[in-house]
Every structure is written in C-alpha cells, then in structure tokens.
C-alpha cells in the first residue's frame, strides 16, 4: 500500500526556487557579521575577508544540506551539497588565476612605456633601461626553433599518417610520446651537452637555445598536425589519385591545403608553449644585458630569462628591477594571448570554404 502511494506521487516536497540563493546570501551576511564583530572586539587586527568567505561557504553548505535533508530527503540534499562543493572548487581555483593576471597587468603597466621597448639593460643600474634586447632575443630564438621544428614536425606527421606503417612508425609514435614528457631543463642540458662537446664547456649562444626549444616543440607540432591530417577525408585522397595525381602531389596540393588551418593553429599554439620557456635558455643561451642579433655567437637573453634575472639579480634600486620583471611578464602574457588569438583567427579564415 505504501509502495503504491509512493509510486503514484510525482509531486515531491521541494524547496522554493530561490532557496539556494537566499541561503547563500544569509550565510555570507552571518559570517561577515561574525568576523566584523571579531575585528571590532580587537580579536583580529582587521576584518578578515578570506576568513569570512571560507566560513560563509561552509555555513552555506551545512545549512543547505541540513534543510534540504529535512524537507526534500537525502538524495536531493546530497545533490545540492555537491553542486555547492563543485561551484566552490571552481571559485577557489579562480582566486589565484585572477590574482595572477590582475597583478601582472597592474604591476606590469608601470614600466609598459616606450623606453622599455626601445632600450636594453646595457650599463643600466637602477631605474630606466628596458627589455628590447630580450624581445629581440625571444624573437630570434623562438623563430629559429620554429624554423627547425615546423618542417621536421610536419614531415614526420605526414610520414606517420600517409606512409607510416609497421615497426618504424610505431617506434616513432612512441618516441614522440617520450619527447612530450621531457622536462624543459633536461632539453637545456641536452643542448648544452651537445654543444659543449663540440665547442667546449663555456659555450653559450642563441642557437643552442633554439635547439633545446625544438626538442620541446617538435612533439607538439607532430601531434597536432597528425590529428589534422587524420581529419582529411580519405575520399579526397582517392579523388585525387583517380585523376592521375601522384601521391606526393596529392599530399602537397590536396591534403595539406585542406588541413592547413588546423596545422597553422597547432604551430601557433606550440610557439605559445615554448616562447615562455626559461630553464633551457638559462643553461645554454646564458644571460646578457646587451643587444645581440647573432644567434651563433655570444650570450642571448630572452624575455622569460629577462623576467627571471630582473627578479633574482636585483641592483641597488630593487623596485626598478621588480617593475621591469612585471612588465616583462606582462609582455610575455600579451604575446602568448596574441598567438592564441591569431591561431583562432587563422583557423576561422582558412577553414575549408562552404563547408557548413
């Protein structure tokens, strides 16, 4: 009898719609009041925002859990609490990420001026100076790494998708997985070990950094290109073969143009990945405060290394160095964002025409 009546009921007892929000506001107000009281009573030196937020959130979860349990039952109550927990996880994670971006923007803007983009750190102690040498270094080293990685990466992906079968292709796929996991500092050590053997242990130059970065970039390019080539329908290859087009021309003129948007996007994103690398360049490209346009001789500083050294090797006027570090960081983030943005635009523009 009870079973039947339960089955017949579809109108469960539910809490009103605004319940969750009301409870949330109430919890936060209550928690804020408590902390305000503590602050006024001189127990804590000032109003503790973090504490108020944490206690408010816990209060909310407990209230929602208990009330919902009493009114709506166990399952509904767990559902509501878990929704709260998951949202809380999201909000907690947001704090450091927003703080990071906000601080970089706020502190980086101090030295985001013409001088930063037009002068190096040569003979600068204290205020002034800029990161031009590091920007040039970044462009050169990253450019060289791209020139090395893109052809090798794309050709390897072509081999794996269009030609590769059997043991060689399998082992290359495996090694690319291994390469993906190489810590960047190990890539730097490799470049050092390689060039030190040839030029002696004191060797520091830009191209070494480019080699180290290529080691990190190639697997990313191969992976993304491979994915894109696999998306090209086989029918297009067959259509081309059936017109009497040799395989290599089919790949160059049909397969690659069809996949080009995705491939370029992948390349841009891989550039964004390596442009922020610091550790390998610290080891093989070294530090420098002067302009250097020659990849093949002398030390070369890149932006990430610039940020690092501005912080670690502070001169007399520490704040000037820290300001420059933040500006360097801001420029880096802007470059990375731009690369991502360009990648998206290219993907949009070059996407195959007329395909829905």
């Amino acid at each position, binding site marked *: 009898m009870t079973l039947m009546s339960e089955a017949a009921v579809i109108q469960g007892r539910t809490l009103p719609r605004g319940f969750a929000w009301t409870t949330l506001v109430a919890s936060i107000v209550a928690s804020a009041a408590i902390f305000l009281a503590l602050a006024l009573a001189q127990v804590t030196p000032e109003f503790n925002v973090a504490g108020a937020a944490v206690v408010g959130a816990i209060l909310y979860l407990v209230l929602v859990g208990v009330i919902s349990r009493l009114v709506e039952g166990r399952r*509904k109550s767990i559902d509501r609490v878990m929704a709260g927990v998951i949202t809380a996880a999201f909000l907690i994670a947001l704090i450091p990420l927003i703080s990071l971006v906000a601080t*970089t923007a706020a502190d980086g803007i101090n030295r985001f001026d013409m001088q930063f983009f037009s002068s190096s750190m040569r003979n600068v102690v204290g205020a002034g100076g800029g990161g031009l040498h590091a920007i040039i270094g970044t462009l050169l080293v990253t450019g060289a790494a791209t020139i090395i990685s893109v052809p*090798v990466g794309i*050709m390897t992906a072509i081999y794996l998708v269009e030609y590769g079968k059997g043991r060689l292709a399998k082992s290359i796929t495996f*090694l690319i997985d291994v390469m993906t*996991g*190489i*810590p960047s500092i190990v890539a730097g050590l490799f470049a050092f070990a390689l060039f030190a053997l040839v030029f002696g242990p004191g060797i520091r130059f830009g191209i070494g950094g480019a080699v180290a970065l290529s*080691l990190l970039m190639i697997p990313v390019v191969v992976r993304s290109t491979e994915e894109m080539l696999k998306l090209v329908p086989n029918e297009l290859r067959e259509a081309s073969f059936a017109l009497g087009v*040799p395989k290599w021309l089919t790949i160059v003129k049909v397969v690659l143009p069809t996949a080009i948007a995705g491939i370029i996007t992948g390349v841009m994103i891989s550039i964004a990945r390596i442009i922020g690398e610091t550790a390998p360049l610290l080891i093989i490209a070294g530090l420098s405060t002067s302009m250097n346009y020659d990849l093949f001789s002398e030390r070369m500083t890149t932006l990430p290394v610039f940020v690092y050294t501005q912080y670690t090797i502070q001169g007399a006027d520490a704040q000037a160095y820290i300001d420059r570090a933040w500006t360097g960081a801001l420029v880096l983030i802007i470059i990375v964002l731009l690369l991502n943005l360009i990648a998206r635009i290219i993907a949009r523009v070059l996407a195959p025409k007329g395909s829905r």
Partner: protein
Amino acid sequence: MTARAKARLGDRVFQAAAMGAGLLILVALAAVAIFLIAKAMPALVASPEELKRDGTDFWPYVPPLIFGTVWAAFLALLFALPLAVGIALFISHYAPRKLAQGLGYAIDLLAAIPSVVYGLWGILVLAPAVRPLYEWLVNNVGWFPLFAGPVSGTGRTVLTVAVVLAVMILPIITALCREVFLQTPPLHEEAALALGATRWEVVKMAVLPFGRAGIISATMLGLGRALGETMAVAMVLSPSIIISFALLQSQNPTTIAANIALKFPEATGLGINALIATGLVLFAITFVVNALARVVINRRKEFSGAN
C-alpha cells in the same frame, strides 16, 4: 615516359623526406640519451674525493633531491586534482552553456601562461600573502608534524611552492578532464536520468566512471609537468639539500630541476657532470610517470572501442 619518371622521382624524394624527418626524431632522442649519459658518466664513476673538490658528492647528494622533487609534485597534485575535477565538472555539467564555452577557452589560455610568470607571482604575491596563515598554523596546530615550527619568515616554503605548482598544473588537468567529461556518451547520462537520478547521481553514475581513466592520465600528465617544473620552484623556494616533511620551515628540500637551474650557471668541472647526472635521474622519473599515463590511456582506448 618522361612524365612517369618525373612522377616517380617526386614520390620517392617526398617519401624519403618524410621518413627522414621521422628518423631524425629517432636520432635526436638517441642523441639526448647518449649525450646526457656521456656527460653524466664522469660524475657517476668519480671517487668521492674528486667530487668533493668540486663541491658535490653525487650519491648522497641525489636522494634528498629526488625526495624534494617527488614531495613537492605530490603536494601540488593533492591540491590540484580535486579542484581540477571540480572545475571540469562545473564547466561540463553545471555552468550555463554560454559561460561554459568562455570558461573552457580561458582555461586553455591559462595553460599557456609561462612558468616564469607563475614564479614571479608566487614569490611576490603569494608568499607574503600566506605568511600570516603559516604563523597561525604553526602557533595553533604546530603539534602536527607537517606544520612543525619554527615558521619561515619569508613564506618561501615547500607548501607555497606546492600551491604555485598546483595553480600551474590546474589548467592542464582541467582541460583534459573537461574534454573527457564532455565525451561521456549521452546515452549513459540519459539512462541515469531515466532512472530518476539527480544531477549529482548522473555525475557519479555516468560521468565519473566513464572519465576515470581520463582523470588518471590527466593526473599523470600534470604530475609529469610538476616534476619537471623548474622556474617556479627555483624562484619561490628557499632551498636546502635535506629530507624533511615539514611544510612551513625555512629549510626546504629542493627539487632536481630547480637545483640545476640555480647551480648550473656557477658550476665547473665535475660539478657540471653531477648536475647533468641529476638531470638524467629527473628524465628517468618523468619517463616512468608518462609511460604509466600512456598505458592507462591505451587501455582506455581498447575499452572505448566497444562504445
């Protein structure tokens, strides 16, 4: 006939070029292994006296570094994993659809922020901010071994490093988890809904079981990243070569990668070889972690073939 010869030649050249690129990768990796081992060898075979002269004695020197590397990465994972799964679920199943797309994009961007920026943030913003909390912890729960005093005056402790690392790997793990959660077959979810499940029960019954292998492999990749991370640790930590579980003291176990970055510029002679040898150890550790991730991913591929 000439046209044919030309076509054949083009095909042969192109295929050879593609294969050559693949072989180059084989050679490059072999070179990495060979050069690192060659450069590490002197430190491995040198007598302790020789090594002492250059400031480092290899074998007693490595275990604290390995400990520090694994300890910091483990702590980072402890913070990052639940949060990442939470965010991924929030984006894939709780947030309004329009918001979710923007959030997904934002997470991808955060994954691309250079580690040196995280390092700068860790030392200049996070470390000062957490000092009062650390003092409170040591004063009130100092009896707990992890929070034993004396408290560090700078906030540059292994706990801060772990938080910075967690923030760094958070976007990576989240991005992968989100992708896996979104791939949950709609049929599974609908089946759960049809049984009268609440949203959380759908997540528990359909989404999490389906995504378990994906979560594991995302975790492994995040762990690999945390193990190899250099700059954030090098900038934030006040390092020592010790084994200690204490989270809040000024003496902290450093990591292999950070140690190399800090010591390399001034290293000479056998010191360089010793550092390269530690790099080799790091490579081995990350290799194992990544290989495990790979195994899990491949196993999942086999299973999902049935879907």
